[in-house]
């Protein structure tokens, strides 16, 4: 098992209280095979439980599409995208942000 630390930069924005979005960077120990969703779970569980990302009804099998995000500017399913180095994570639709990485679909 290889362990290294990666920097995960995350888009943060609460339209109700923030004037504009900002980014926060977290350091996450990376275990072999961790996906973007695993990394976000790690942040929620161990560093910052205030982080919002579509997680409450995520299927984790690449089927539901609920975890669609921009990773380094490219659209992908967080549960199916492996993390190998530093990443920037943003909502797929920045104009419809509910909070942080959660956005309106319809």
């Amino acid at each position, binding site marked *: *098992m290889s362990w290294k630390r990666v920097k995960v930069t995350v888009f943060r924005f*609460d*339209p*109700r*209280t923030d004037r504009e979005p900002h980014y926060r960077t977290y350091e996450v120990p990376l*275990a*072999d*095979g*961790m996906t973007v969703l695993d990394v976000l779970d790690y942040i*929620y*569980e161990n560093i*910052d*439980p*205030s*982080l*919002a*990302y*579509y*997680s*409450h*009804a*995520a*299927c*984790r*099998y*690449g*089927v*539901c*599409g*609920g975890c669609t995000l921009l990773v380094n500017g490219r659209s992908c*399913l967080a549960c*199916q995208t492996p993390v190998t180095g530093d990443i920037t994570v943003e909502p797929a639709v920045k104009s419809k942000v*509910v*909070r*942080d990485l*959660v956005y*309106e*679909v319809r």
Partner: protein
Amino acid sequence: MVRVAVADVLVVGGGGASLRAAIAAAERGASVLLVSKGRAGRSGATLLAGADLTLDGRSLREFGFPGAPDDSPEKWMNDIVTQGFYLNNQRLVEVYVRDAARRVGELLDRGLEVLGSAERAIDTTGESIAGVLLRWARESGVEVVDDVMVVDLLLSGGRVAGAFGLDLKTGETMVFRSKSVVMATGGWHKAYDPNAGSRELSGDGVAAAYRAGAYLANMEFVTFCNNIVYWPPKWRGNLFLYILHSLAGGRLTNCRGEEFLRKYDPVVVKYGTSMEWNKCFISIASALEVREGRGSPHGGVYYDVGDVPWEEYEERVTKFYPNWRFKGVDFSELAKMLRDRVPIEVGPAAEYFDGGLVVDENMRTSVPGLFAAGECSTGVFGANRVAAATTEMIVEGAIAGEMAAEYAKGASLPEVDDEQIKRLEERVRGPLRREEGVKPVELLRRIQRLAHEKLGPVRERRGLEELIEFLEVIRRRDLPRLYTTSKSERYNREWVEALELENIVLLLEISAKSALMRTESRGVHYRLDCPHTDNRNWLKEVVVRRVGEEAEFTARPVAVTLMPPPTGIVPYWEMMREMMLAHSDVGGSH
């Protein structure tokens, strides 16, 4: 601010049972509102189902598939009841085998994707079932509300008056007023880690109905899926090796390298590995190895390809999963591990909840105006499910929807109780108001670990008592102290988990107490300290309902129609063998 929505029929849930119920109610002329915790048709256990829609072989042939020629609904009923160790509500089994073909046929007519067929099943995907149902629901005029968690049912003079929900995206509370309600929220997988469900399944509907006074039964019966990956962590919780074991063979060993399934009766091993009996048999056998100190470092057992030559093994797999791909996932890395004989640790994970809301053959619960369908109801599969839950959801969903619409026709819209809404508002916002206390995710992890250990496939009195004591302390001391770090009402995961935890603790406590009360082993409930199936005293369901703040447990005889149950007290493994041998001559894995 409280938002209000009104409909004749309110349907709660985002999976197949819920969609099918909503369709049936709408087709009967009711206005229907479907509230889903995730995205309807894109959440719930349906989406992840394999999926084999079971129906009898004769009907299968009538649809033009090569099903078992000599099969009949009667034979199928025989098999479902014996697989269920005679704890099935036989009235519900009759409904299941009677309606299965018609309900499956409707999906085929609407373009269900067919991958193949077996003696008693059509192979399709949960995604396709959910897709067909969602389209159909939209065409029928069902109004869908996504990402709203139903927190509790509203009552008016002992009758259901709708539900109280929380919009998870905006943090607004919502009042849904309706003449009748169908509960179709599935299982409570989240009480366990690992589990084979999607994340939102925390038993909200079952818990809410219980609080509203509905009877629950069979809560001690939890079906575990065997061969779920425990280690390496990358694949933790994955069920691919479950599929591979039945598809391509391979073997399970303990830490001494023993093929422990060989210890069992050859008949049990044969049925227990070639049919969906595997979930019951292999889960218990694996958990026994672990409990007796012969497990792997991460609490499981080992799976490898055994004496199947690699080329042959790979050929069997890639015939169904070309290039080692399944759904969106690439399994070539796992394939490499299997080829190189890297030991992979596997074990049981909670998959299906046999217990739930007590319903009659019209899917009525004991609360007037409240109906239930699918996994959140109980009865059809008794102590062990082998036939498909996907068929259950469309059969029961259709009935529940029709009956809820009929009920609504003759009913007025009940008034809602403002006091109840005020109390719910207080309760829901509690975790947001508290500045310190217990972190939801930390409490959840502790609960999940203990549930897996004490209320897994193998139970015994002491462990159950410890779990019950633990949960009682949690309920009194920790639940009222749950708090959120962020006070934002917009998509706050800690807030959702705090609300879910109330349901998880409630249902686990009921399940553990039911398991303690059932002093025998039957189906997926195996008690080390009571290793007999007791047909003299326990052809009974453990039924529970809320009386004040306490749960009242009783045992009542199971509903028998066509098949008289066996008598006497039989060693569990002998009973399992008998039930396997009672299978009719149709072959296949169901």
